[in-house]
């Protein structure tokens, strides 16, 4: 066998070996595979929605009472009433109330609740307020922080789909509205002038 043929066969064999020992795939696909979420947040949220989540919000503190407590002793009220995941100034409260619709805007509905103007969010239903105010879910029950965060996304998604559209379609100025929801407050920068409540349930009272 001539040297040329030997080299050609050698190069082909080497080529086959190298080709089969390397695989190319897009970086974003690989990263997505590594961050694949196995935990099914939607199923989890569905399993706690009625019996646990709605239940704990039914026993929320009256918003007017909470504001009076915060004005009197913010430190004690944060300690006794707020839920928080770890260390820091931010606390989440479960609140309920009833008020008159003052104005319907693009992003929220302004209510007058016993003399206090309250912003009922209808657009920016994001973040961990509803999950964390509930006190039902603990970060250390989840190995992956991304799984824990996906619970909030699922809760917020359900509020956006099931709670907000029906309310937005019917609400008008002058309506009486009752609500349960979550309120995020910052202990070090406490501002009670316009509390922003993310609703978990809303009812227009005929």
């Amino acid at each position, binding site marked *: 066998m001539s040297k040329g043929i030997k080299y050609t066969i050698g190069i082909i064999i080497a080529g086959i070996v190298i080709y089969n020992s390397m695989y190319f795939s897009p970086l974003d696909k690989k990263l997505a595979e590594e961050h694949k979420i196995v935990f099914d947040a939607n199923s989890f949220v569905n399993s706690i929605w009625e019996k646990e989540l709605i239940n704990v919000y039914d026993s929320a503190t009256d918003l007017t009472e909470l504001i009076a407590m915060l004005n009197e002793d913010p430190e004690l009220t944060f300690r006794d009433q707020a839920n928080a995941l770890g*260390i820091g100034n*931010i606390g989440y409260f479960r609140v309920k109330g009833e008020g008159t619709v003052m104005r319907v805007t693009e992003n929220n509905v302004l209510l007058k609740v016993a003399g206090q103007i309250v912003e009922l969010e209808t657009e920016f239903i*994001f*973040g961990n307020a509803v999950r964390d105010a509930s006190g039902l879910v603990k970060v250390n029950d989840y*190995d992956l922080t*991304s799984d824990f965060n996906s619970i909030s996304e699922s809760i917020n998604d359900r509020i956006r789909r099931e709670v907000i559209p029906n309310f937005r379609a019917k609400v008008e100025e002058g309506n009486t509205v009752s609500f349960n929801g979550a309120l995020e407050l910052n202990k070090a920068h406490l501002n009670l002038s316009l509390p922003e409540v993310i609703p978990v349930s809303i009812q227009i009272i005929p």
Partner: protein
Amino acid sequence: MKHRMKHITLFHIPFLLLTLAMFLGCSTEKKDSQEEAKKVAVIISTLNNPWFVVLGETAANRAMELGYKATIFDSQNNTALETDHFENAIASGFDAVLFNPTDADGSIANVRMAKRAGIPVFCMDREVNATDAATSQILSDSYAGCVAIGKYFVEKLNKKGKYVEILGLVGDNNTWSRSKGFHSVVDHYPELKMVAQQNADFDRNKSMEVLESILQVHPDINGVFCGNDAMAMGAYQALVSAGKAENVMVFGFDGAADVVNSIQQKKILATGMQFPKLMAKTAATYAHEYFNGKRDFAQKVPVTVEMVNQENVDGYVAYGGE
């Protein structure tokens, strides 16, 4: 048999005495070392970013305030160098590690190595993707912080426009927590179009170069969301060079001094204020409690992030103060 035992005992008397002397010597040495201050290693992902310098120095200072010796190691964003630091810390007899990991997956082996050597590891700011390795992980709630920034971003851009996202290190969980928190809001607005998403490794110069390249293809962007403040400053520099600083809104994350000043000067719109000093002090305090016998630490301790923006910047100081 009795005779044989006696023979062995007599034969070994000098060795037994020698062994006893060595044992006593070791015991005395151990007692001396126990009386010496315990040593705490502060291993930081990079000291090429002032935010991490604050984190590392605060951890070391707090450890020294508590009566320990502290040494800071710089991993230079290199997991291999980080491994060297862990090996050195173990070989040099450090008693605890206050750790800011380089890579959520790549750093696990280093934490486990310390654990096998009986050395507790307290993660600061960044987590490792294992809940059975570190003694405790004190972590910024980056996701929630970036949800707040995402809402502000949507409001300021009035729900429409083109934007660029500059990511940090692809191996760091904070990079993805921040990105996911931001997108959990922004992706609900179809008229907000992300024209480019690129990583710049949390580095100011890389961010500037990345945005300079992007601006050549997309000169009409309205906003830039950056995964940290160093990259936000780099992005702002790129916009100044391109004469677009007035038209493009820049958002960062960290609460670094230059960005808090830039928010006051309306150069940068907002940032997520993390609390590096709080995290560092908590980690050092946990190490102190560990030395005093405490073992039941929560695996993850989130630290809240607060948005600093045009409306509230006067109430904040860099790095959360203290």
